């Protein structure tokens, strides 16, 4: 299946793009998507443990299964204010 990962904040720098397409096995989870990104982008791998995943207007569980066509967002450490 194919999903899209939107990269917010500094995660766009770590991954070299604002959005990345990943081809994952059926039943893959958010954690699997993060693993795939970590394999491709060393700068992301070094910071992965502090990155959350969002779907729509909510934080998503990294253990929830994804579906073909899903769009998820990387939420790196925040700095509002």
């Amino acid at each position, binding site marked *: 299946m194919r999903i899209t990962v939107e990269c*917010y904040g500094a995660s766009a720098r770590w991954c070299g793009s604002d959005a990345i397409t990943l081809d994952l096995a059926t039943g893959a989870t958010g954690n699997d998507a993060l693993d795939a990104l970590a394999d491709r982008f060393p700068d992301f791998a070094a910071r992965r443990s502090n990155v959350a995943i969002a779907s729509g*207007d*909510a934080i998503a569980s990294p253990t929830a299964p994804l579906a073909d066509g899903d769009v998820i967002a990387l*939420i790196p*450490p*925040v*700095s*509002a*204010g």
Partner: protein
Amino acid sequence: MSELRSRPRLRDGALNLADWLAEPQPATAGALNVFAGTVRNTHEGHAVGSMTYHAHRALAEARLREIEAAAEARFGVSALVAHAVGKLEIGEISVIVVIRGGHRAEGFEACRWTIDAIKSAVPIWKEEHYLDGEARFLEGVPIQPVESL
């Protein structure tokens, strides 16, 4: 719901403080506490020329409203917040917290809690632009759920 309450809390460009003070003070309130964050011209020894605020818009809007509701439930006050997105110049307002409550004690406490909650639970990222031409995102903190604050 007032016209002000129906507005998005995430706004493009610098905020105007007067816009967010337009609601009438409740008759039962004896305190109006306001915090406004502005863009500073220096950070950790770097001369800052401007700041760009990036956001995950859908989640940030939901979180700002969730923080208002949490502040109202926790402190028994009226809370209104707003945050800017986009490029701001030095001195411009990036975030506003307006608290209206019975007394100053809960007003100050609610105001402090609310701005701290915004800083740790809203997906917004500061990108500083330095006078030497460099730019970088600030380090930040891992995003927290509002109910944990």
